[in-house]
């Protein structure tokens, strides 16, 4: 006799509800940490691509071209295996030997941060290019130094214009966390795999995972829509 679906994903003795919720929390944690790292990298790369230096521009362009052109899974493998090999070498100096696994959470955050940095850089660069030149000139005209003008004028304008694109990259990041399951980090997909393996009910568990992912994307869409409405408060809309 098979257990009913709700007993399977419920919070009872045989239910996987608690484990799935914790794993959902892990998915969100990896996504948020990776996204924040990506924002930092993205800002730096956008700055490099907009800078006057030829070399910096080239580096920025190479970064965004390469990381947007190769599969994310390859980047994850690079950090998982490459990171472990590097850790092993370092540990070798201290007399340890054998395989040392790179912590899966760190691998995930690094890989996601580096990939989403490339996407966020393009969004931020586009937003900066779309800010009205007059506002920046006005800031200079009233005597603001570079940093003050950046903090008071440029950053808020860029954020306002970039927010829809940033929302898109957040959704990408969220879905990319599923790939981190290959490193063994127990996030939502990995937990569903474990549950599916032990109960032999993969269909129900993967369907539940899809529903939980949809719940997260749906909530974050609502949050981003509210944030967008807030940043647009001071803007006169023509349509």
């Amino acid at each position, binding site marked *: 006799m098979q257990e009913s679906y709700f007993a399977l994903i419920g919070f009872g003795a045989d239910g996987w509800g608690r484990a799935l919720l914790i794993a959902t929390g892990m998915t969100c944690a990896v996504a948020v940490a990776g996204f924040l790292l990506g924002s930092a990298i993205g800002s730096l790369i956008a700055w490099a691509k907009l800078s006057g230096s030829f070399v910096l521009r080239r580096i920025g362009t190479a970064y965004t071209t390469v990381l947007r052109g*190769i*599969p994310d899974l390859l980047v994850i493998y*690079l950090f998982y*295996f490459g990171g472990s090999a590097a850790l092993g070498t370092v540990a070798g100096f201290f007399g340890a030997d054998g395989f040392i696994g790179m912590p899966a959470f760190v691998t995930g955050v690094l890989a996601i941060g580096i990939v989403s940095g490339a996407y966020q850089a393009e969004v931020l660069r586009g937003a900066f290019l779309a800010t009205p030149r007059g506002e920046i000139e006005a800031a200079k005209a009233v005597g603001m130094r570079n940093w003050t003008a950046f903090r008071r004028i440029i950053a808020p304008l860029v954020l306002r214009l970039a927010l829809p694109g940033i929302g898109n990259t957040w959704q990408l990041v969220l879905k990319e966390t599923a790939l981190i399951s290959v490193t063994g980090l127990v996030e939502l*997909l990995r937990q569903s795999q474990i549950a599916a393996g032990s109960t032999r009910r*993969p269909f129900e568990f*993967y369907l539940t995972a899809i529903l939980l*992912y949809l719940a997260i994307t749906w909530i974050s869409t609502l949050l981003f829509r509210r944030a967008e409405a807030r940043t647009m408060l001071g803007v006169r809309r023509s349509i």
Partner: protein
Amino acid sequence: MIDFGFMWEALKILIAGLPLTLNLAAASILAGGLFGLLITIFAQTGGRPAMVIANGYVFVFRGSPLLVQIFLIYYGLGQFRAELQSIGLWQFVREPYWCAVLALSLNTAAYSSEIFRGAFQSVAAQQVEAARASGMSGPLLFRRIIFPIALRNALPAYGNEIILMIKATALASIITLMEVTGLASKLIAETFRAVEVFVVAGGIYLALNFVLTSILSWVEHRLTPHLRPRPDPLPAKDKPLHV
């Protein structure tokens, strides 16, 4: 430090996965693009219920990770073996290749239908009016006016989707298909030389995407002669010598 001999060997191993990568991408882009077009037409012509169904489909497939969709189809459908056997679909569902193509197609169909929707909506009302005024309607109007203009509008966004699909085929390696990424992960596990293998595999994808981008921008250039500046009828004669 960099071992070029090893990288050359790695290239020879990994390039063997390229046909499967291309095969997966081509099959799912064709099937998914067609299905996406059907979804768009269905949503635009079927009234309110059709719109709700199409939006639901797009929400589900765009809002959840592709890898989970692949797992749901590959492992999840295995649970319905008896039923699938009775309708003769089991031989497809047990093959990782068909599961990957199915998942990739369903996924790209959702993205494509959104691209096509935008493209159809951007066909100028005046052009449709002009076509109606000259007596076209129904399928003729669609075939001669709406479809070609929408195709042209969709091309830049659809080009992005094609590149995304090339990258998405990497996920098929997780359900045992030995395309470029599958061979790369096997090679890394055997040799522990992640960086070299990564560089070679990444190089293959970059080259592939570079070729695709070039083809796409050539097609786009050919399809948009009306957006290019007109050739100068009096070259070098009506301009001052020093600008």
